[in-house]
């Protein structure tokens, strides 16, 4: 009793800090006015903040999202036709076959500080890329022998040899201002590690020609951009769009998880979340009358690759049989919940001009049993056998046991490396499903999730693997990468030919198409390359997920949908506040 009395007294004299806490809570809640959002301010949610504003260092998606609003290229892809349209350039480039030159006329464009953008800036950008060997761009600008500028608004690029990708790769590089970078570049050149020095330069106020300029960046909290009054596109019709911007600025906010970003979108704290959504969010979002959901194709390739250097995966019949067993319909309908496209070729079908629809479609349209039977027939005909075959003498499918290779030895256990489920659940689950399908066939497959950077090192660096599932989420629309991924000279440490694929016919075609300036002829070659690849199946293309994005329709309209989604400089130049 006595104790109770004392305790009661103790509780009554609750320490001051609890009272203080309550007071603070009350006070803070009272001032919880979040600040009125001006009508013309577009609020975009990003999954993370940009790592850098230095265009030469930026390799993460979020930095690039910010910087593509500032630094602009000479040519940009039309969102509808996917063809390159003049952006900082005034017209299509003129190619001189004899001299091997491209002549580019420039628009009358101003940098955001009001100074003129001239041919000299283009030359300067090219020099920086070449002299500092800036990754991503330098290998494309290597094709240039020299650059001439007959006047302030004309640039002539002299190429060493005809280069088909020059236009789509080199002339789509972002242009920088001599004024902003000259002193930095000069100082960096004097250092031991010039590229590192250039990349480590801190950029506080990037100077570009884009529709927006950086006003304020508070690390970890927000990035505020305002309309560039000197933007060349304002009032111009380019790519069929009458460009603004019609908004006063963009406020980028950062969200560590999609869950919180979705709540922010529903609550009206942001107008758009610039990140692909998982299909699980869609039911909830589509029920909200103020939210619009956008589905667009990606320029992506998710695939299963084999190590062709290592038996038995050097046998094309085994690879084709595995391709036949994999049920891509199942992967799309169950793992991607219907939001994706089956891939049969290494160029996604959204890239209509370059995609070859006539490549072999292994097991297409067959059910599980039919697939197993077909794969069984293929392997049996090639000399494979089983301790217990997956198809009994009556033609019924059963669980196969212990596949034996044509030399009679049992197939050894092999591993399918995948990224972990927390990094990409789709690839991890696809790996598990493929493991099960292959085991039904008697193949001792084991899916093994591995930390992403370790996986890359294992596959690309050490080349110590059996099979893997990887993907490219944002492929360039020029399919030159087909030649890169499977070129025999790329079969080296850190090379892109991870499978170790070697085919002389393919290599010849690859080299030939790189110098073919006629687009239709080049397409023929690239179609043939795709056909060869799908005959040899070093990779089994699996799926191309849709990009699912959401934006508030009660706040703004006019998003431009394109391959890759609605987040692009096109959208930010055309989106309008509701009521404006």
């Amino acid at each position, binding site marked *: 009793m006595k104790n109770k009395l004392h305790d009661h007294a103790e509780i009554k004299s609750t320490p001051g800090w609890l009272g203080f806490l309550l007071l603070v809570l009350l006070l803070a809640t009272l*001032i919880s006015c979040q600040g009125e959002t001006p009508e013309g301010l577009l609020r975009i949610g990003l999954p993370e903040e940009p790592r850098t504003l230095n265009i030469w260092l930026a390799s993460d998606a979020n930095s690039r999202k910010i910087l593509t609003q500032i630094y602009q290229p000479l040519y940009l892809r039309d969102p509808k036709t996917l063809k390159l349209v003049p952006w900082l350039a005034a017209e299509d480039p003129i190619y001189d076959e004899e001299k091997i030159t491209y002549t580019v006329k420039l628009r009358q464009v101003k940098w955001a500080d009001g100074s003129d953008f001239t041919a000299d800036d283009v030359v300067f950008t090219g020099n920086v890329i070449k002299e500092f060997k800036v*990754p991503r761009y330098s290998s494309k600008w290597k094709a240039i022998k020299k650059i001439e500028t007959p006047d302030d608004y004309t640039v002539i690029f002299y190429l060493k040899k005809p280069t088909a990708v020059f236009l789509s790769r080199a002339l789509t590089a972002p242009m920088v201002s001599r004024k902003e970078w000259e002193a930095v570049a000069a100082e960096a050149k004097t250092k031991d590690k010039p590229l590192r020095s250039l990349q480590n330069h801190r950029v506080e106020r990037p100077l570009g020609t884009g529709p927006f300029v950086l006003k304020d960046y508070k690390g970890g909290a927000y990035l505020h951009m305002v309309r560039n009054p000197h933007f060349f596109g304002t009032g111009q019709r380019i790519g069929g769009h009458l460009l603004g911007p019609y908004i006063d600025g963009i406020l980028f906010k950062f969200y560590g998880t999609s869950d*919180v970003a979705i709540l922010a979108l529903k609550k009206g704290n942001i107008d758009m979340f610039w990140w692909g959504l998982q299909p699980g969010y869609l039911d909830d979002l589509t029920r909200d009358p103020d939210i619009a959901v956008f589905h667009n194709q990606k320029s992506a390739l998710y695939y299963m690759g084999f190590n062709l250097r290592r038996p038995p995966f050097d046998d094309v019949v085994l690879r084709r049989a595995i391709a036949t067993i994999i049920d891509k319909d199942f992967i799309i309908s169950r793992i991607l919940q219907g939001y994706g496209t089956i891939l049969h070729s290494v160029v996604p079908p959204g890239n209509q001009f370059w995609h070859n629809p006539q490549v072999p479609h292994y097991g297409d349209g067959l059910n599980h049993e039919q697939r197993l039977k077909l794969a069984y027939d293929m392997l049996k005909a090639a000399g494979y056998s089983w301790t217990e075959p997956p198809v009994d003498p009556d033609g019924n499918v059963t669980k196969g046991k212990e596949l034996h290779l044509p030399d009679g030895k049992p197939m050894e256990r092999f591993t399918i490396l995948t990224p972990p489920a927390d990094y990409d659940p789709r690839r991890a689950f696809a790996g598990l499903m493929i493991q099960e399908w292959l085991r039904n066939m008697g193949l001792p497959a084991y899916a093994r999730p591995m930390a992403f950077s370790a996986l890359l090192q294992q596959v690309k660096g050490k080349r110590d693997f059996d099979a893997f599932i990887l993907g490219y989420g944002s*492929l360039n629309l020029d399919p030159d990468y087909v030649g890169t991924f499977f070129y025999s000279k*790329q079969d080296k440490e850190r090379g892109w030919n991870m499978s170790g694929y070697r085919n002389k016919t393919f290599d010849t075609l690859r080299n030939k198409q790189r110098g073919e300036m006629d687009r239709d002829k080049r397409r023929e070659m690239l179609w043939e390359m795709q056909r060869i690849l799908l005959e040899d199946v070093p990779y089994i293309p699996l799926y191309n997920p849709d990009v699912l994005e959401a934006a508030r329709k009660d706040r703004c309209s006019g998003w431009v949908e394109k391959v890759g989604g609605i987040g692009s400089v096109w959208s930010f130049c055309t989106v309008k506040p509701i009521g404006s």
Partner: protein
Amino acid sequence: MLFRLAPGDPVARMVDPMWTPEEVEYVMSQLGLDQPIWTQYLFYLKNFFSGNFGVSFHYGEPVHEIIWKRLPNTILLFTTSTILAALAGVFFGKIAAWRKGSKSDTWMTISALVCHTLFVPWFALMLVWILGYKVGWFPLNGIISPEIWVDESSGFLVKALDVLHHMLLPLMTLFVVQMGSYLLLMRSSMLGTLKEDYIVTARAKGLSEKVIRNHHAARNAALPVITSIGLSLAFSINGGALTETVFTWPGIGKELVFAVSNNDYPLAQACFLLIAAVVLTANLIVDVLYAYLDPRIRY
């Protein structure tokens, strides 16, 4: 050294199919990663003793600047939560032990166990969903409301209260989770202390129950809690990555996870060095505090 031995390629995450192997190799050489590991280690030691912790591979900024930008945010949130949780834990743990076997003890112990075993990201998301989204009392995430900060008419007080307002939800999460463990620790320590002879002596001397509980028992029982607070404060530097991620709190825990998972060696090394320094300092402070709190301890 361990970072370099861990699997993973520091430039793997930077590259895209547009990079050639030659470009990748060039970048590796620019980062100094083409050197043998012992050369890199000697280079690190040399820089370390000259106070240079290097430049982050991904940020392109000196790592000490990145850390100094993030550290105050982490200290603000985690130190506040640790202190508040410890005070509350000691307070309620003391009462629970004093009322051992009563209903209030049972409830407090069960609640503490529940809090202690809560899955932090789930709990944080629930708080965001209920108190931030449904009820709307708190901002959903972040350290400030950008709309207030870009508005040039916002004064200092409004901005300060805005930070405070953003801090409350993550603070509540950490407070609840941490308080459970402090309460349990205090309760168990106090139960042991209450059996000591000097408590019987204090009762025999006719001291009031309140004085016995607060001055004789609780003060001695709090010693393990002090140790725990010291270590918690030290590990809170890196231990809040999940909370920081859910609330988009720009602290150092998230950076550490990023640095390790992306093989950003300079940043990861500096973060670990900082943690080691803070843990050592916290241990020293706790040892000194022991001597102050418990006159029996002399060094």
